[in-house]
């Protein structure tokens, strides 16, 4: 057996040019999947072949809300639920920017739910990454809009009685042009989805199912992060093009993943530019 290969401090991780290394280590707990989503995103930024100076990343509040602070792009950590609204301002005022919203399920789908559906309806050209860990983790494990029925959370001590949102279905029916879902385990496919979505014109939504080892799995006695990953390994199924209606996630039930929607619709900025041109012709 060979000795442990350790590396000297000056050795550089290949992702370091897109990360703010002065802030690493990040705040996420051991066994959390948000870091994996960031890794996949960082890998995708390099693969997507885009000018990194022209990419802005916006986050809301929560565990995933901290992502903006770790990615070396023009990055904005805004208020709870309003990341999409803030990003809309950036995209509309500066159409040559590529805008990414990276936030959690509570932030994007509960308090920011209205902005989510309206951005999809307008088809604002941005990538929305929704890291779904089924719970409000930053505040200590309250019920989220994605918490499966009967799962426990601190504010539903007798089991969740609210049916959860099916995020791909919500995005699809609101008009998103690209909708995909992967778990944190399926990191290569996730990276490919990010690359596709970054190069897609219109609102793309990528849902990342991520283990929350500290709250969701602890309150529901599901073991640690690794146990959650094993669960994803055994209980997830890839079905590209599946009707988004069928993508509900039950408590410890099968997770259907894949790329569900990939279509073309004119984006908000395109339509706005067309409108401006028409106005000018009419002058």
């Amino acid at each position: 057996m060979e000795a442990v290969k350790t590396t000297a401090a000056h050795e550089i991780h290949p992702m370091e040019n897109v990360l703010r290394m002065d802030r690493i280590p990040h705040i996420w707990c051991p066994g959390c999947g948000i870091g994996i989503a960031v890794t996949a995103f960082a890998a995708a930024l390099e693969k997507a072949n885009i000018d990194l100076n022209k990419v802005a990343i916006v986050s809301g509040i929560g565990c995933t809300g901290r992502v903006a602070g770790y990615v070396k792009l023009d990055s904005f950590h805004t208020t709870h639920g309003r990341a999409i609204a803030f990003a809309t301002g950036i995209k509309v005022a500066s159409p040559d920017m590529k805008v990414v919203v990276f936030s959690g399920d509570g932030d994007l789908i509960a308090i920011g739910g209205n902005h989510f559906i309206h951005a999809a309806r307008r088809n604002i050209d941005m990538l929305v990454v929704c890291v779904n860990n089924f719970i409000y983790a930053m505040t200590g494990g309250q019920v989220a809009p994605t918490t499966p029925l009967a799962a426990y959370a601190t504010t539903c001590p007798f089991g969740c009685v609210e049916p959860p949102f099916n995020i791909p279905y919500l995005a699809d029916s609101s008009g998103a042009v690209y909708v995909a879902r992967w778990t944190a385990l399926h990191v290569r496919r996730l990276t490919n989805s990010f690359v596709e979505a970054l190069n897609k014109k219109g609102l793309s939504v990528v849902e990342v199912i991520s283990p929350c080892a500290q709250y969701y799995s602890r309150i529901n006695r599901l073991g640690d992060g690794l146990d959650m990953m094993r669960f994803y390994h055994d209980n997830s199924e890839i079905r590209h093009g599946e009707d988004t209606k069928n993508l509900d996630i039950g408590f410890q039930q099968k997770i259907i993943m894949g790329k569900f929607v990939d279509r073309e619709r004119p984006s908000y900025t395109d339509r706005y530019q067309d409108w401006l041109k028409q106005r000018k012709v009419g002058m």
Partner: protein
Amino acid sequence: MKFWRKPLDEGKHKIPKGEIHILQDRCKGCAFCVEYCPKEVLEMSEEFNKKGYHPPKASKPDECVDCHLCEMLCPEFAIYVTTLEEKEPVGVGKKEGEK
């Protein structure tokens, strides 16, 4: 690599080889890399890092096939792989004559 039957193009393929680099003090010991390494190159070490976690160690470093899965699955940016010179073709030795 073991196959239940020998691939016909075995000789044309080379096994890539990588070198694993572990930034021990960044590790929070989630063990994702250990669990999902396809070649079972990694295992948790007995030692503690600065934060008090057990980082992984490469117990079979020669078997790394440069797949980068540990790098992608690490939530802490604490492990990465660099490509080494590729190994000789899979069937070297046995199919010498065919070359």
